[in-house]
C-alpha cells in the first residue's frame, strides 16, 4: 500500500491495535491502517470519534504498542528507533497536560531543559501562540483554550521538523481557532510537516494540502484535498435560470437528468459537460443566470465515506 513518496515523514503499513479488556473480549481500534504522509505541508488526519486517530498518534509517539504492523517516522523504525528522532518531533496528544501549579512558562522551561533548549526559545514560542501575557500565571487558572495553546507552544519548543497534533483546536473559541489555523498554515508553509488530526472538517479543508480519512481503524481515502473531494459524491452542475420548470423539461427532453434544488436546478452531469447544458437550454430560448459546478465539501465526502462501514470485528 505504500505509494512511495520520495520523502515520507510518516509511513504506516498494516497497523493493528487491539485493546484487551480486563473482563475478556477486546476492541479493535486500528484494523490494518496504511498511511503515508509526505514531507512538508499540512496533512489532515480526519475521522469520526473512535475511528482510531488518537490511537494512531499514540502509536507513532510510542505511547501505545501496536498489536502488529509497521511504522516509520522520519525514516526511523518505530517504536525501536523513536528516541533517535523524538527531538525532531513536536506533538500534542488530546488535551495537553501540564503541571497545574506551575506557570505556563515554568512548565515549558522544564520541558525545554530536557532537550537542552534555551530560555529565549520558551519566550519565543509563548509569543508565537499568543500566551506571552499570561505565561506567568499558573496553568490551573488557564482555560481549555489556553492549555491548548500552551500545548502547541510545547510542541514548537524544539523547533521540530515534524508536528503531530491531535485535535489542536479543541476547546478554542472561534478567534482562537482562526489563530491556530493561521499558525498551522504558516508552520506548513515554513517547510515543516504538520500532521493534524481533527474532526472539524471545515478547518482542515482550509489548511491542509493533503488529507486522509479514517473510519473504524482503516484509511478509507487519502490524497490531495482536491482529489479526495472529487472522490466523493458524483459531482453535478448547479443551474439558475428564470423558468425552472421549462429548463427541467428541456433537459429531460435532451436526456439529461435534472432536479429542483431550491431556487436552482441540479444537473447530473460533470463540470466537463457544462457546454451541453448551455446548448440545450439556449436552443429552447432559455438563458442562464448562473452555471457552476456543484460544490462538494470535505464534510460531504467524509460523511459519505464513513457512513455504513461495517464495524471491524471486536
Amino acid at each position: 500500500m505504500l505509494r512511495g513518496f520520495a520523502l515520507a515523514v510518516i509511513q504506516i503499513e498494516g497497523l493493528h491495535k487491539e485493546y484487551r479488556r480486563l473482563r475478556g473480549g477486546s476492541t479493535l481500534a486500528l484494523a490494518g491502517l496504511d498511511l503515508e504522509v509526505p514531507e512538508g505541508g499540512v496533512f489532515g488526519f480526519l475521522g469520526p470519534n473512535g475511528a482510531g486517530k488518537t490511537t494512531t498518534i499514540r502509536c507513532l509517539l510510542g505511547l501505545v504498542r501496536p498489536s502488529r504492523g509497521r511504522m516509520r517516522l522520519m525514516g526511523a523504525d518505530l517504536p525501536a528507533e523513536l528516541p533517535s528522532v523524538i527531538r525532531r518531533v513536536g506533538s500534542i496528544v488530546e488535551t495537553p497536560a501540564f503541571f497545574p501549579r506551575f506557570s505556563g512558562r515554568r512548565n515549558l522551561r522544564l520541558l525545554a531543559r530536557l532537550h537542552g533548549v534555551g530560555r529565549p526559545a520558551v519566550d519565543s514560542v509563548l509569543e508565537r501562540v499568543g500566551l506571552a501575557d499570561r505565561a506567568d500565571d499558573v496553568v490551573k487558572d488557564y482555560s481549555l483554550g489556553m492549555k491548548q495553546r500552551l500545548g502547541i507552544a510545547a510542541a514548537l519548543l524544539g523547533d521540530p521538523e515534524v508536528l503531530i497534533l491531535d485535535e489542536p483546536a479543541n476547546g478554542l473559541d472561534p478567534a482562537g481557532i482562526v489563530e491556530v489555523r493561521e499558525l498551522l498554515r504558516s508552520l506548513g508553509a515554513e517547510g515543516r510537516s504538520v500532521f493534524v488530526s481533527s474532526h472539524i472538517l471545515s478547518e482542515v479543508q482550509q489548511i491542509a494540502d493533503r488529507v486522509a480519512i479514517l473510519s473504524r481503524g482503516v484509511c478509507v481515502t487519502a490524497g490531495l484535498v482536491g482529489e479526495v473531494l472529487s472522490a466523493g459524491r458524483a459531482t453535478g452542475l448547479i443551474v439558475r435560470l428564470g423558468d425552472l420548470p421549462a429548463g427541467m423539461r428541456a433537459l429531460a427532453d435532451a436526456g439529461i437528468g435534472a432536479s429542483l434544488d431550491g431556487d436552482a436546478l441540479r444537473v447530473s452531469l460533470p463540470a466537463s459537460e457544462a457546454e451541453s447544458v448551455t446548448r440545450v437550454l439556449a436552443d429552447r430560448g432559455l438563458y442562464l443566470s448562473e452555471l457552476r459546478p456543484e460544490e462538494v465539501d470535505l464534510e460531504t465526502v467524509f460523511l459519505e465515506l464513513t457512513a455504513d462501514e461495517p464495524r471491524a470485528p471486536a
Partner: protein
Amino acid sequence: MKALLLVETRRVIARRLVKGLVILALAGIALAGIIAAATSHRPSPDVVAAAERQAADNLRECLAGHSVAPQDLPPNVTLDEFCRENIRTEFYYSSNQLNIRDLPNWIQGASFILFVGALVVGASFVGAEWHAGTMTTLLTWEPRRLRVLAAKAVACVAVVFLLAAGLEVVLSLALALVAKTRGITSGLPSGWFRSVVGTIARVGAAAAAASALGLALAMIGRNAAAAMGVSFGYLAIVEGLIRGLKPQWQPWLFGDNLNAFILGGGSLPGGRSVGGAALVLGVYLGVLLFVAAVSFRVRDVN
C-alpha cells in the same frame, strides 16, 4: 539522563506536598523543642549533690561485684567498664531533665513519622503524574521509559533522603539546644556522636526506602491512593497476621527489618545486623522496582 534527572529533582522539590510536609515537620520539631524546654529543668545543686552521693554508693556496690555476676557481663567488657558505663550521676536525677545522651532514641522515635511522610511523597510524586496526565506529556519528550522511571526514582529517593536527614539534624540541634540550656549534656559515652550520625543516616535511608516503595507501587497501580493503601494494608495487616500466625517468618518481614535497620541491628531474633536488614529491604525494593519497570515499559499509556 542528566537533564532528565535535574528536571525530576526540581519537580520533587517544587511539589506543594513536599513543601507542606517539610513545614509541618519543622513546626513539629519546634513544638517538640518547646515542650522539651518547658518540661526540662537543670538540676539544682542539692539534687546534683544527692545524685552524686547515690551514684558513688552504687558504683562502690557494683565494683564490689554485688550488682552483676561475672557471667552476666557482656562479652569483652570488664566489671569496671560495665559499672562506670551504667552508673552515672545523671541517672540519679529526677526524670525531668532532657539528656542529650538519649538523642539517638529521639531520632529513632521520629522515624515512623518520616517513613509515612516519605511513603506519601513517593506515591504521590508518580501517582499525581498519572492522575494529571503529565506522564503522557513527559513520554512524548523522552520515550525511553526505563530512563524516565530511573530518573524519577533517583530524584525522589535522593531528595527524600536529604530532607529526612536534614530534618533529623534540625531535630537534633533543637534538642541539643534545650539540653544545653535546660537539661544535661555531660557524661556522654564514647562513640555517642558517631551513633547520632549513624542513626540520622539510617533514618534518612529508611525514609528514602519508603519513598521508593511508594513510587514503585504508584507506578504499578498508576495511582497514589492505591499505592498508599496497599503499603499500609500490607505493613499493618498482612505482616501483622504473619507475625501472629507464622512468627518464624518474622526475620523476613519488611517492617521488622526496617525496624532492625533503624535501631542499628539486633532487634530481630538471631540478632540481624544493619547490613543484613538493609539487604532484606533492598531485595523487597528491588523486586518492586523491577515489577514497576516491567509494568511501565510494556503497558500502554492512554
